[in-house]
């Protein structure tokens, strides 16, 4: 009883995670410019990664594999935003897309 509940939970997490990963991949293709794509891509990997890893953790039960998975998740959560930030900063410093951005926001307001 308990086992089936856990495995259903894990399936739910995995499916949501895969759905999110698809969603953001589509966002990556659909969004109009670099910064907006950035929101779709690197950033959202964090929750999708979290869901999938948690789903795997539930499958593994409590073991060393769990700990390893959690370490992977931790590293991803530390490095991924840092890399995104470095990327955004580099793009900004290169002056990429600044003008388009202002136009876009002024046309909206």
């Amino acid at each position, binding site marked *: 009883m308990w086992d089936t509940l856990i495995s259903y939970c894990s399936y739910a997490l995995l499916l949501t995670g*895969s759905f999110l990963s*698809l969603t953001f991949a589509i966002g990556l293709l659909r969004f109009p410019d670099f910064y907006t794509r950035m929101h779709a891509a690197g950033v959202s990997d964090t929750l999708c990664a979290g869901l999938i890893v948690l789903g795997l953790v539930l499958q593994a039960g409590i073991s060393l594999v769990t700990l390893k998975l959690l370490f992977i998740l931790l590293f991803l959560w530390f490095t991924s935003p840092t890399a995104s930030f*470095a*990327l955004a900063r580099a793009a900004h410093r290169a002056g990429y897309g600044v003008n388009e951005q202002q136009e876009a926001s002024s046309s909206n307001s």
Partner: protein
Amino acid sequence: MILAVTAIALLVAMALTLARALLGPSIFDRILAVNTFGTKIVLFLGVYGFLTQRPDFLDIALVYALINFISTLAVLRFFESGQLVMPKDKE
């Protein structure tokens, strides 16, 4: 079964990311795509490890989680300065 679905979803997402990397248009889009691709590979390796019952793959996933970050930084650094090490600081 669900694991296979997850793996396939990740593969499709990876293919879409690859499309972005090939389309560009700017260099940053490509770097972004490669970086995201790395994260997806980490997840895929994890799922695949479970699918084949071989937790060895988690080690490879860890390598990616650690190394991908370094290469992204190196690439950015190269792009910002044209050289891995700047002769002089801009700021």
